[in-house]
């Protein structure tokens, strides 16, 4: 067997741990309770325990994990962890770091989830509430999926339309300036997106 030496990248590990929500990372004792309880690991290649291990070793490759974008935020890992690591919060931190890399052009991911989340936030910044029809249109355009996306959700859309469950116009809240203010202060670079400065 070929031997391999692995150096812990302390700087990157520190970077993750200093993110809000990832403070408890070092408590992990690698018991796999999170993995056993994770509902998506049954269907996709995703092992929460291993992801924590990669973080602990400071492996930058951890940001390439496709599962980062498949996590459903079900809170099973948070709930069951004997060390209170709160892995679901760690995921949000990793997503933020990955998004930075994507924006800097250093990372490419297959998932459209980062784009979806951005569109979702932009809708809130614009109207103060979610506007699904507008969201889908924006997402179709920005993800590059275009008609393909609309086609794959055609059935769902028609069913909801038939039951009168789709809003055809956005509703803007009265004090939208308060929302814009929140985005400006806490939205990071998102505070400046789409002209909601």
């Amino acid at each position, binding site marked *: 067997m070929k031997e391999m030496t692995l150096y812990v990248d302390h700087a990157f590990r520190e970077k993750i741990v200093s993110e809000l929500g990832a403070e408890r990372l070092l408590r992990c004792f690698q018991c796999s309770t999170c993995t056993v309880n994770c*509902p998506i690991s049954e269907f996709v290649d995703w092992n929460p325990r291993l992801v924590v291990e990669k973080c602990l070793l400071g492996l930058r490759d951890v940001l390439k994990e496709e599962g980062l974008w498949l996590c459903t935020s079900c809170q099973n890992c948070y709930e069951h962890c004997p060390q209170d690591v709160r892995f679901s919060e760690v995921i949000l931190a990793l997503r933020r770091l990955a998004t930075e890399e994507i924006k800097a052009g250093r990372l490419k991911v297959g998932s459209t989830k980062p784009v979806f989340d951005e569109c979702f936030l932009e809708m809130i910044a614009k109207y103060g*509430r*979610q506007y699904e029809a507008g969201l889908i249109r924006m997402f179709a355009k920005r993800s590059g999926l275009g008609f393909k996306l609309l086609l794959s959700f055609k059935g769902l859309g028609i069913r909801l339309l038939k039951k009168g*469950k789709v809003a055809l116009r956005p509703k803007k809240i009265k004090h939208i300036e308060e929302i814009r203010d929140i985005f400006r202060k806490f939205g990071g670079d998102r505070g400046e997106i789409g002209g909601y400065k």
Partner: protein
Amino acid sequence: MKKYSYYPGCTLHTSAKEYDMSVRAVFSALGVELIEIEDWNCCGALEVGIPLLAYALNARNLALAERAGFDLVVPCSACFYNLARTDHALRDEELRRRIGTNYARRIKVRHVLDVLANDLLDEIKMRVKRELSMRVVPYYGCLTVRPSDFGFDDPNHPESMDRLLSALGADVPKFPSKAKCCGGPILMTAEEVPLKMAGQILEEAKRVGADAISVACPLCHLMLDAKQPDIEEALGKEFKVPILYFTQLVGLALGIKPRKLGLHKNVVPAREVVEKVLRQARRTLSVGRAAACSKKRERLRDS
């Protein structure tokens, strides 16, 4: 009159209209007032990965509710998660200062299931007009009960909906999938995974012979109801299981008209189970009437 503040959340105005209709109808039948907080904003659902942004968005709603002065009732489990998570985090004064909120945690954030099953169960029982003669499985999903740091029920084996539905006369079998994840949050970006996840829940409901599944979250509802035809197609199986909001079932038991509960808005038709409940109620009623009549006859004869 008992009063609560009400945060409907975005979906209750669109894809979950029947949830909004049935919540309002049930509370009004119980004589409990719901006051929608003014000018509320979106909670951010599960798409806000920046904690401070999520806290600030939700703190605005919490402060609005606090100004109104009543505990806040929330029907959507994702909204409940966000509001309760923020309320929990804001125990930290430093954090409150950091996001600049004047919310002082003088009110409580409550899921509508918690309020109906724990605060108002006696009022409901007193007013039951029809027994729910059906076999129904309770499905809680994730964020209704997890994390238990700020939840109101057991995170793996919740019981509140079971208790509520049984009290209304429903046959509630054991349902091991009751707190499993339906996959809803990744529907738009990785559709094939949630189709399988929700499929397993529908399969188990079929296996235990359920007439319907009762839910407490708009996203679970969308996944199991409006997406059910797509799940059937993907798995090559037929389910046709009606998915009802638990408030629609409570409303039925309270004798509220099905239309007022939005029972015509569910995608998988609920007509058959609703008819079953109404038919049984009429039968019980006529048996009851016949019994009353024969008693009266006996009294007349004896006098």
